[in-house]
């Protein structure tokens, strides 16, 4: 295989952030260097209780009290499945559910499965100018609406949704509100204490700078979600029924301890840098990329004013997948192409063809942005002059 001496320039942080801060890698290594300490599962006292520490870190970071209402899962999709199926398990007569065209398949697919099983009636609210309008949500509410599940930040358009206004409207109608924060946690301040959100989903491996295999959710009132998974918890072991206390109500089996140690380290890293400085750097770099790409007339940008460090574009006359291939092979730039698991977004913005997405993290440098902008502009310029000639 050809050895490419160029360093990797990584713009796929909305999928999985990379590189990880050294502190995160060190936390994984440290965690694996000692036996796992877990209350009820070992008498050892040598290691740190990474699970409780991570729970406390996340609780403080998200403004979500008490820490026991932070539940750890495998990832955001896992969390959404637990919350959706758990909510519907308590609403056996079926109900009307709302979601949005901005949402990821982690929301759309579970809901469509339940719709196909005739367990729910589903409405998908469209978006305009990258955002779901609160008035559209209000207009979609019916007497039998019980649940809304929606993204906090679009993984394609980088637009943060007005979950405060939407949540207030939903709560006025007694509708349970689940927010998918996979793209926002770690990128913007969250402050769940002041938000009308019943459950908030996060993942560890994106903005929170942890490693894959970690995620979770905050649930304000655990009683609203029926547990749907059962097993060992290391607590109340005489009971043959699953404990209903928190967080055991939703956490089963052995935790991903190295992953949670990494997650806590990722949150520490973000807090040390300060979320305000993370936002500022992301805004500046994203604005730079958009400014540069706009210079080429045949680059179509689908989100000129994103709230998150995401730029979605296509080059006229070129397949998005070919552009991704050229960036990867020609310039060692890792982007993401295609539908980004958000088919309804693409149906609305590019006719379902998909696009190229650049997504940044704290570790993205100004120089990397400059190199990426130059490479994309070069491809766009050549697309004008050379396409079709062998």
């Amino acid at each position, binding site marked *: 295989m050809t050895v490419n001496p160029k360093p990797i320039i990584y713009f796929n942080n909305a999928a999985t952030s990379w590189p990880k801060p050294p502190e995160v890698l060190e936390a994984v290594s440290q965690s694996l260097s000692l036996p796992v300490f877990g209350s009820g599962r070992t008498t050892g006292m040598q290691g740190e209780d990474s699970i409780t520490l991570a729970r406390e870190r996340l609780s403080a970071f998200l403004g979500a009290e008490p820490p026991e209402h932070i539940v750890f899962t495998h990832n955001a999709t896992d969390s959404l499945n637990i919350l959706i199926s758990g909510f519907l398990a308590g609403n056996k007569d079926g109900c009307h559910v709302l979601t949005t065209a901005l949402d990821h398949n982690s929301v759309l697919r579970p809901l469509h499965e339940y719709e196909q099983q005739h367990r729910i009636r589903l409405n998908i609210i469209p978006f305009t100018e990258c955002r779901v309008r609160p008035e559209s949500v209000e207009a979609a509410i019916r007497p039998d609406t019980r649940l809304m599940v929606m993204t906090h930040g679009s993984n394609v358009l980088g637009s943060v949704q007005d979950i405060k206004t939407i949540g207030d409207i939903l709560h006025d109608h007694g509708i349970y509100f689940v927010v998918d924060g996979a793209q926002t946690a770690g990128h913007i301040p969250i402050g769940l204490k002041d938000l009308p959100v019943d459950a908030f989903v996060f993942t560890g491996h994106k903005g929170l700078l942890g490693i894959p295999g970690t995620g979770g959710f905050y649930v304000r009132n655990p009683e609203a979600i029926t547990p749907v998974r059962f097993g060992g918890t290391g607590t109340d072991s005489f009971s043959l029924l699953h404990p209903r206390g928190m967080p055991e109500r939703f956490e089963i089996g052995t935790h991903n301890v190295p992953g949670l140690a990494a997650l806590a380290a990722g949150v520490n890293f973000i807090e040390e840098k300060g979320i305000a400085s993370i936002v500022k750097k992301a805004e500046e770099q994203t604005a730079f990329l958009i400014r540069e790409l706009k210079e080429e007339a045949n680059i179509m940008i689908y989100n000129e004013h994103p709230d998150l460090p995401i730029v979605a574009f296509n080059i006229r006359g070129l397949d998005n997948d070919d552009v991704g291939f050229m960036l990867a092979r*020609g310039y060692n730039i890792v982007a993401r192409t295609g539908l980004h698991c958000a088919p309804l977004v693409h149906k609305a913005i590019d006719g379902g063809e998909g696009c190229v997405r650049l997504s940044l993290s704290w570790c993205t440098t100004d120089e990397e942005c400059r190199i990426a902008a130059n490479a994309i502009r070069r*491809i766009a310029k*050549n697309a004008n002059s050379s396409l079709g000639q062998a």
Partner: protein
Amino acid sequence: MRILRSVRHKVCADGSFMKEFLLDAPVTEGFFAYLENFGTVESLPDVGEGFYKFEKPDWFSIKGFAGDTTVEVRFKKEVMDLTVDFIYMLFSSYKGGEVDLSALKRRELAVGERVQKRLYGA
């Protein structure tokens, strides 16, 4: 030129099946010019070392950069079992310079009939 092995594969959003092949020698502009005998080739020669894309509708596409020893091939999944051998033939028949296309053309015709029948029933 020979395909050594497949180093990556995935099912693409459009339903095609992608395989990345490792070759025993870098692909060249000349190789893609040779491929034009069997389909269409698009190029952006000033991007990187030169980007090339070969398309044989209903069969497969081949993408690569000049000087690279890997190429990405996307097969139409429904007929992949019929066309995959032809990919190997395409690569192994190319040795630079003039290529005798007669055997390849005969094979292309035979496979083409089966592809047509499978996809369109005629």
